[in-house]
């Protein structure tokens, strides 16, 4: 006895525009459908839950009418580090350099930014204490720190052949332990009543909130300058990757190292270039978190933004502009999920289950953008060979 239909995956000769958009959309819908079943089993009404998630992530029409965009801004705040890390990962993965270390590069950027904010004013008292000076200096320091943290595994890879997956992963732990050591030890705020965390940054090193920036001040809430930097960097990287010689070299190296070498392109130079870029962008993510939100180095930096960035980059197919959109949607999922606990009193694990279902189905649905499902009826004829097997 055998099943009367046969399912086969057949490679699509061409991926049409419809398929490249339709398949991910259908994947998300399927995830919501299966998520709905799980929600029902957990005793939560699916439609209402989804509505609450959407409201949590984007707000409601009545809120918008009142000029209250708090939910949207929270989503963008959550998206900001994911855009940075997503871009960092996308750049490295483009040339098959598996940078798993954006978490550590982010933390190193935050440490450098903290040092600039708290210790540089005493060290260089002549430096004008304004945002016009301290924000650029902070960005440069964070970029250098993140890039340095990526440069070490990169040079180990090109000179000694050390596997970068392992080295970048291990460098995360070094960075995270260093950061924890700093804010609980030497950099602990002497006036902090024993709470772990550095002193608060002087205000001239804070990233301005949108409410302080002309034009953008229609948005209040916690959203800050870091989001602007992230979007600008995405644009710059898109231009670099798509329009420049350097981008072409990186693209070629990622697709076929032999062909790139044959074309006279240096592998070492480009690996170092991309890793410095990747680490630098991840470093700014760390600065953005400390200078834009907490204004001090404290617990909560190492919450996995670097690792989520890998998922963001992958879903965005390593395209810089798509990273921005995917990061915002991912953030919406996180923020909306958090709201479920507040508005419906659901356990937080439910939102994690939904997040997992959606991510998994989008990633696995990707198969259908490249392959089509072919269902054939199996004809069982008299002469079929091997029927007894």
């Amino acid at each position: 006895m055998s099943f009367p239909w046969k399912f086969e995956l057949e490679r699509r000769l061409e991926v049409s525009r419809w398929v490249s958009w339709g398949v991910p959309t259908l994947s998300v819908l399927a995830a919501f459908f299966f998520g709905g079943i799980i929600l029902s089993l957990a005793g939560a009404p699916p439609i209402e839950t989804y509505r609450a998630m959407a409201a949590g992530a984007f707000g409601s029409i009545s809120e918008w009418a009142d000029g209250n965009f708090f939910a949207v801004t929270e989503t963008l705040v959550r998206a900001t580090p994911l855009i940075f890390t997503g871009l960092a990962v996308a750049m490295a993965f483009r040339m098959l350099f598996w940078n798993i270390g954006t978490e550590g590069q982010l933390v190193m950027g935050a440490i450098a930014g903290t040092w600039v904010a708290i210790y540089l004013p005493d060290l260089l008292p002549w430096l004008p204490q304004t945002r016009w000076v301290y924000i650029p200096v902070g960005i440069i320091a964070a970029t250098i720190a993140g890039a340095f943290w990526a440069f070490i595994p990169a040079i180990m890879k090109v000179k000694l052949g050390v596997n970068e997956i392992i080295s970048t992963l291990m460098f995360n732990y070094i960075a995270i332990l260093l950061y924890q050591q700093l804010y609980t030890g030497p950099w602990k705020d002497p006036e902090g009543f024993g709470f772990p965390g550095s002193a608060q940054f002087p205000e001239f090193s804070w990233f301005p909130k949108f409410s302080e920036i002309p034009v953008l001040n229609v948005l209040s809430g916690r959203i800050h300058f870091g989001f602007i930097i992230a979007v600008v960097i995405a644009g710059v990287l898109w231009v670099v990757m798509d329009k420049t010689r350097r981008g072409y070299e990186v693209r070629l190296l990622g697709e076929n190292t032999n062909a790139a070498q044959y074309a006279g392109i240096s592998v070492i130079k480009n690996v170092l270039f991309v890793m410095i870029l990747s680490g630098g962008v991840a470093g700014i993510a760390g600065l953005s978190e400390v200078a834009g939100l907490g204004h001090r180095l404290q617990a909560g930096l190492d919450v996995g933004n670097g690792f989520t960035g890998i998922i963001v980059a992958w879903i965005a197919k390593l395209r810089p502009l798509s990273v921005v959109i995917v990061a915002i949607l991912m953030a919406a999922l996180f923020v909306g999920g958090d709201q479920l606990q507040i508005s419906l009193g659901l356990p937080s694990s439910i939102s994690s289950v939904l997040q997992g279902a959606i991510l998994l189905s989008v990633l696995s649905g990707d198969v259908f953008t490249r392959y089509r499902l072919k269902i054939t009826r199996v004809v069982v004829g008299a002469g079929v060979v091997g029927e007894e097997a």
Partner: protein
Amino acid sequence: MTTTQPETRRLVVEMRDITKKFPGVIANEDVTLEVRRGEIHALLGENGAGKSTLMSVLCGLYQPDGGSLHLALHQEELCETVLRSPRHAIQAGIGMVYQHFKLIPTFSVTENILLGAEDTPTVLDLKQSGARIAEIAERFALPVDPEARVWQLSVGEQQRVEILKQLYRGAALLILDEPTAVLTPQESDALGETMHSLAASGVSIVFISHKLDEVLAYADRVTVLRGGKTAATVDVADVTKADLARLMVGRDVLFSADKPDAELGPDALVLHGVTAMGDRSVTAVNNVSLTVRGGEILGIAGVAGNGQKELVEVMTGLRTPTAGSVTVRGADLTGKSAIDFIQGGVAHVPADRLGQGLAGNLPLTDNVILKSFRSEPISHRSFLNKKAIREMSIRLIEAFNVLPGDPDAKASGLSGGNQQKLILAREIDATDRLAVGDEPAVLVAVYPTRGLDVGAIEIVRDALLNQRAIGAAVVMVSEDLDELRTLSDRIAVLHGGEVMGVVDPASTSKDDLGLLMAGERLS
């Protein structure tokens, strides 16, 4: 060696009016193939003629959209059969040997043969199985050590293991997919003998090929496919090479190139006492001195693996010699990198088209600018000029008639012949640009016609001769002695990384070339 006339033997395979369609393509249309017991049946056709599709139907990978399959491998009478999967095909007695072997290098021969076989027991008795394999090997005259690890075997021996694997599984029909593509001429001849002895013991063989000579040398009958249809099925004894070529291409094909006398220009590429290490830190090129002048084709002959790869890498800056000097158009480029050689005037048609010459996942536009993306007008300062890239792509695609000619299509979607046309177009464009002035450009072409069909081979040879005519210095590495003798003005023979001699093709026999290739100096 045949006991009965092939005509009197019974049919074991009959494919009647097989049709197989893919989206936008009819790969096979009403194709008919008949194979007799103990027959060597060649399936001949250009790339894209539908050979692989037809064989994929026969080994259960594809279901035909029309037509029927009749088999008599395990019984006397032909019986209509539907092969639902490769496993059914194996059970029906059909064994496929792919061009790229499906062997695990670290496993022994026995382990590889047992892997995936239907009756392999849960607990292995390698000794007993090895003995059985040795017995089969002896019966079919396929000498292989069952205990050897596959990585220790030569390519020819690995192919024998693949054949043995199919025989072990009870194959009475062997399909060999372009079996000589990976073999040296000597190994090909050994394979021919193997096929004859297999056929003599009753095994039927279908071998896929697009090489006319080997079809004539090894096959009893040949079915020619053209454009997805059966062009003819003929006895090999009744046809000539020209007949087969006409059936395959649909028009007359010239086998000898018309070559005017060389008009020698200045020295373009000079190697002096070059020694270079191979990838395993063994001397691969030993004290080689060669001079290539503008307007000539220097052929490099040799059995594969005698330093050709490393010598070419030295000539193109991809490998730094440990001793000696490399001079390109008067400039000493010893120890310089690939980019200096590119800019110094060395174009390179590499042996591995998709592995080195192209980035398969990228569109033709990106592949076209591989060598020229650093220069105006393709890029200005750091930025690429998309309009200029597009214009250049369309110009080269049209000049070499690359099909399909969509500049945004992926390079991997092109057939082998069109990939080679694209690479040639790009490299020749580079030499054209460099040839301005008196100094000739250098074109290093490595196995430029390997794996190509007759039509594409003509185009490639014409292009090389044309480069010679306009004064470029051409280096051509090839394993095809006929090709070398037809095209080259001089032939340098490599053996063990050394030049055994540089000879005049007109006054040197094929046998003498063979002796040089085997490492004997001519007295």
